[in-house]
């Protein structure tokens, strides 16, 4: 297609702006890492307390050589995926149930609000007593953190459905199941995916929290162990790995979002 000179200039300007933003985004992290390394190398900040990028790399190599690196990443990933899947399925089912039974939704409303505002880490000791210091407690902790917010977000999406569309479905004599599958779910896809994005972060927070409290493996455990033996390089490594893991998981949900959005919803 032939473009006018002005249009080519406009496209070039947009492209340059995009490249500039990417360079700036990358520069921030590079400058931060270099500055951090320089400050520790010249003893301007205490390397023992603040660690340094080179020490973190050395720790990662050491963990890799002792076959511990991927093991801890794997444990945290699996726990996160399990709690994410569970909280998504349970959250969607529970929100659907609340939409279906309005009276129950009204009865449970204050309890959901209380549970949502409660700092779940306070329940840590109770969970350990109930489920023991292990895998179950970690999943339960992650579920407590992510499930309530999933239910609330999805239910709010269901409740904000366009009244006219609901009226149309009723005028066409649709039953509740048809309203749910042909209107409620497809019109809430964006909201459900946004909830998944929140949910993946919440699950990772929950799993890390659980690992900090009870685990003997996983990235949360690495951080806790590092702080107990005052190995700040290990703590920072754990934090960095968690950061990378959460970014990868977030982008995986974004890819899922793109796949779902590109798909036609004619089957609904």
């Amino acid at each position, binding site marked *: 297609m032939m473009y006018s000179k002005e249009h080519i200039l406009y496209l070039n300007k947009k492209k340059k702006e995009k490249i500039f933003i990417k360079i700036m985004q990358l520069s921030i992290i590079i400058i931060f890492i270099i500055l951090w390394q320089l400050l520790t190398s010249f003893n301007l900040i205490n390397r023992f307390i603040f660690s340094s990028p080179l020490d973190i790399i050395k720790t990662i190599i050491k963990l890799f050589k002792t076959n511990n690196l991927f093991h801890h990443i794997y444990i945290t990933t699996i726990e996160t995926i399990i709690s994410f899947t569970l909280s998504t399925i349970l959250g969607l089912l529970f929100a659907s149930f609340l939409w279906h039974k309005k009276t129950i939704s009204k009865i449970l409303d204050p309890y959901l609000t209380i549970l949502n505002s409660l700092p779940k880490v306070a329940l840590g000791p109770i969970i350990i007593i109930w489920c023991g210091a292990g895998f179950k407690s970690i999943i339960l902790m992650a579920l407590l953190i992510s499930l309530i917010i999933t239910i609330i977000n999805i239910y709010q999406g269901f409740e904000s459905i*366009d009244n*006219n*569309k609901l*009226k*149309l*479905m*009723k*005028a*066409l*004599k*649709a039953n509740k199941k*048809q309203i749910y599958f*042909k*209107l409620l779910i*497809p*019109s809430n*896809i964006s909201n459900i995916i946004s909830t998944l994005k929140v949910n993946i972060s919440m699950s990772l927070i929950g799993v890390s929290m659980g690992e900090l409290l009870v685990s003997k493996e996983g990235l949360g455990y690495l951080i806790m162990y590092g702080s107990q033996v005052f190995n700040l390089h290990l703590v920072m490594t754990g934090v960095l790995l968690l950061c990378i893991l959460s970014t990868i998981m977030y982008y995986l949900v974004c890819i899922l979002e793109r796949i779902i959005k590109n798909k*036609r*919803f*004619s089957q*609904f």
Partner: protein
Amino acid sequence: MPKKILTVKNLKKNYHTDNDEIVALKDISFDLFEGEIISIVGPSGCGKSTILSIICGLENKTDGIINIENNKKVGYMLQSDCLFDWRCVFDNCMLGLEIQNKNTIENKKYVLELLNKYGLKDFINSKPSELSGGMRQRVALIRTLATKPDILLLDESFSALDYQSRINVSNDVYNILKDERKSAIIVTHDIAEAISISDRIIVLTKRPATIKKEHIINLTNKTNPINNRKCKEFNDYYDQIWKELDYDV
């Protein structure tokens, strides 16, 4: 003599709030005949749409009789087109049939025929966002017609459109209704639209609504809503109804 297909007799509707009981409709009675188009006009908030909602079964009546002859089917078209963004034009038109489990090849052909007949054949696979306001309303009307209703209820169906599209769409809808030999009750606040499209106009009072006046619209050279606006009786009807509504504003 056209056959009576709908009877509304002494219709009453009360709404209940925490502080009050609101009488929306006091005593509404009218009949609808086969092939007839009735418009209901009245002051804003007088309960025009409530009448349609009750006929359609979306709301319960407090008292009175709604009798639909031989269980004739009713189709309802709302103010907004309510097209589903995630469905293409064809799938939107099939919605009612899918819900009623009548997703047959014959019905699919019928929907395609309607789309073809009313100038939407090139947009069958388009998404609603790719259509103009007028085209969206036509798709919404085809979705309503697809279930083959005998009576159509149009609730301010053109009010969301700009003036020019509104006149064109009301003209299209009139032609579709007459082509398909449907009866219709149209709720509108536009007096000119009501005169140009209807065989009869029912003027309501303000809340609690009763029927203030019924006008049988006799226009010489009655053809379609655009031309009907040029008929010599048009302005007389307009003035009369305007005055009747003016008292209630």
